[in-house]
């Protein structure tokens, strides 16, 4: 059961940084400001930091679990809960990953429908994107890691566009700092959870990292970089929008791209959303890869085939959510599930795993 991937299928330790960072920076970044500013308003940037630091702790815990045996979550579940219960828990984990994938895909299509092509036939585009994802995932983990890396390379320059709103910034918006209660700030931090979701996939791709002990450091770097990007985005939005505007900007970052004014291009959101494809595709790929790999490990099912079935499931689920309210709904569901998995399930798993490990060691 504990099959280690071949050496030539692994990637260097530092790709943990790109993978974790890319996975966290999906579609949420395009419009998370309004959600987190719901409770703490202009103080929500503190929530980003608090939420980020707590995820650092969870990430640290995850690596404590993973370092013990160097296996992925399928083996960990089996070791901890036994064959049957462990399998059931893994199935839930697969469903959770698929939910992440569906959410990313559907939300990106929503963005395209709202901002680029209002009359778009979403089904056709989904199938095209599905083919694209298939073409990446069929190449294996290395290709997906490459996609994540190239995705970051292509989308990172978009950060420079923050220069334009900064020209018209009202820095006084941020003052006074700490004028909200701790409760509000924590509530905002809770809503921030959705944006940090994704690092859990480390439970699947951990065996694919060369020198995984070194990878831990890089994973933390990746997460820290995510916090930094979220912080910059949020701060820029906060100093540009007034409180009321912010409440009504569903996609604050996209709205900010609108004001970009270069001599050869205006209304940069068309270019930006297109480029953001490279920010979204690696996430969907990694999600589907992890899910199909888990299916393979659990049911000994050929990954090539399970990929096709899972892709079909993801596409059908995405087609099921049609309206804006439904898209909001899956985001909320994922956010809640993510919150429970991060802050409750992983610590509990850590405790159980450590206990079982000690017990099994004593009675071999």
């Amino acid at each position, binding site marked *: 059961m504990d099959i280690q991937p071949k050496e030539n299928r692994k*990637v*260097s330790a530092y790709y943990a940084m790109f993978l974790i960072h890319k996975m966290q920076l999906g579609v949420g970044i395009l419009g998370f400001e309004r959600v987190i500013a719901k409770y703490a308003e202009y103080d929500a940037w503190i929530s980003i930091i608090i939420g980020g630091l707590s995820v650092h702790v969870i990430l640290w815990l995850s690596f404590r679990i993973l370092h013990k045996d160097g296996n992925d979550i399928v083996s960990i579940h089996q070791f901890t809960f036994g064959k049957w219960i462990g399998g059931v828990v893994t199935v839930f984990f697969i469903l959770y990953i698929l939910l992440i994938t569906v959410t990313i895909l559907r939300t990106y299509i929503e963005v*395209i429908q709202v901002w*680029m*092509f209002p009359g778009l036939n979403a089904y056709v*585009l989904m199938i*095209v*994107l599905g083919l*694209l994802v298939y*073409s*990446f995932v*069929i*190449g294996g983990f*290395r*290709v997906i890691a*490459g*996609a994540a*890396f*190239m995705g970051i*390379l292509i989308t990172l320059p978009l950060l420079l566009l923050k220069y334009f709103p900064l020209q018209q910034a009202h820095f006084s918006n941020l003052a006074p700092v700490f004028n909200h209660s701790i409760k509000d700030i924590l509530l905002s931090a809770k809503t921030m959870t959705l944006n940090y979701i994704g690092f859990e996939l480390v439970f699947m791709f951990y065996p694919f990292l060369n020198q995984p002990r070194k990878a831990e450091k890089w994973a933390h770097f990746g997460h820290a970089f995510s916090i930094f990007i979220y912080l910059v985005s949020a701060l820029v939005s906060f100093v540009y929008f007034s409180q009321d505007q912010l409440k009504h900007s569903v996609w604050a970052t996209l709205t900010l791209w609108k004001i970009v*004014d*270069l*001599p*050869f*291009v*205006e*209304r*940069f959101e*068309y*270019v930006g*959303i*297109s*480029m953001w*494809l*490279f920010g979204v*595709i690696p996430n969907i790929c990694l999600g589907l890869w992890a899910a199909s790999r888990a299916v393979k490990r659990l049911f000994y099912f050929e990954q090539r085939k399970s990929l096709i079935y899972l892709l079909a499931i993801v596409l059908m689920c995405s087609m099921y959510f049609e309206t804006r309210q439904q898209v909001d709904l899956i985001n909320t569901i994922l956010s809640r599930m993510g919150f429970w998995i991060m802050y409750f399930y992983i610590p509990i798993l850590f405790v159980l795993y450590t206990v079982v490990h000690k017990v099994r060691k004593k009675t071999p």
Partner: protein
Amino acid sequence: MNFFKKKKKRIPPLPKNKAIPHVGDPAEDFEELFKKFKASKDFLSFQYPSEGAFTVSYFKTIVSPNQVHKEILLVLAEQQPSTLIEAKKVIPIENMKISTDLKVIQNAAMRGAVIIQLEKGNGNCLLVPCVSSEKRQISVPETEFSVVGPKEAFVESLETNVNLIRKRLPVPELQLKEIKVGKISQTRTAILYIDGIANHENVNRVCQRISELDYDTIADSSYIAQMIADNQNSAFPQFIDTERPDRAASVLSEGKVVILVDGSPHALIGPASIGEFFSAFEDYLLNWHIASGFRLIRLFAVLFSVMSTSMYVAVITYHYQSIPEDLLPTLIASRGAVPFPPILEALILEGTIELLREAGARLPTKVGQTIGIVGGIVIGTAAVQAGFVSNVLLMLVALAALASFTTPIYQISNTIRLIRFPFLIAAQLYGLLGVAICAAFFLSHLLKLTSLGRPYLEPLYPLRLQDMKDSFIRLPFSRQKKRPVNLRPEEAIRFEPKQEPKPRDIDE
């Protein structure tokens, strides 16, 4: 999924006993072999020096007549050897063989050997290699011309080509393996590498793939390049082909493998990564700042060439809001009268350019130039005046065509020529998003692609900062201390830098 399975066709079983003779198979006995030979008019067979002495036979079209007259016939007449062994001693030519093996005899005769037999011999033949091969003079490189630097290019003869490389690398470690490919053409294919630098896995991979080839006639090295490619369905070339011996020699010392094919004036170099297709050998002959600048220009040119027309179509069709206000009047003035949608306009123009290129390539040089001028200037201007296409697009398409010519390797420029069209169609379907989707498809393909098992997108992915020293930019020679990591050379260090003196202080 049974619907898609092919129905098995019933093939009548072949009669097992009767072996079907193939072209090129050795004859069953001596008489049959000579019967086959004599069927050709250029095969000579006669008794020499007198009736009853030796039988001398050869194909007169492939042996060198001078050598036959002076070194074989004359010697046989003067020295009068009585046996084949004696004849072998007196004839002053190396590499002679005495054989009874029909296969050996046939191969040798077909490659220009003179067959000498004792008339009442027992089938023993003395094979005297006496090849005359016509070859071209070494000339100036055409597709990879450089203003400075050596002006020699490979020719069609394998010996000359190996000579051109060997004289540049006078070390015994430069080793050559020869494999014959092609059932009929039996093309000699040489694999060159420097033992101790080149990774053995790479060398073995090349040797194995070439020896496994099964085809009848290999006309050129590009046959081999396509057949041994990692992914034969890829539009991207996976071996660099060069006509410059200096380039071949310098990549050999980097640890690459060079394949030379007899009859082909192009050497194949592998493993290759995509960046090398955009680096000219001239980059090493110029100062590194200038060379790096040129490389960046070329990369930009390629991106421009692939993307510009599709961007135009996407923006004009879907995203006209993103055209800046100051630019809008220019575009409207140019496109206002055009009756076609942008995609049709673009396809017309791209098609015209492709027509011109194809016509120019198929015609003799002088006529080709005329076609270029007629096509470029006359048709272009007329099309704009007639209101069929817009000025702006004409300019973009012409620039894109020009940009695709900046690539130093011919094979990749064809690829660039081709992959513009998927982008165009994607742009028409989904605008800028379509361009991005198309680019992502190509990215997925390039990420999966390997050349001799080494990643194609290296040093970008896998990210190897060390190899960046000679990819998109070229750093000075003093920074090229190590050979490229991607090749996994067995000796990684290129030179040991001497202790650099401390930089002098000001006014010291």
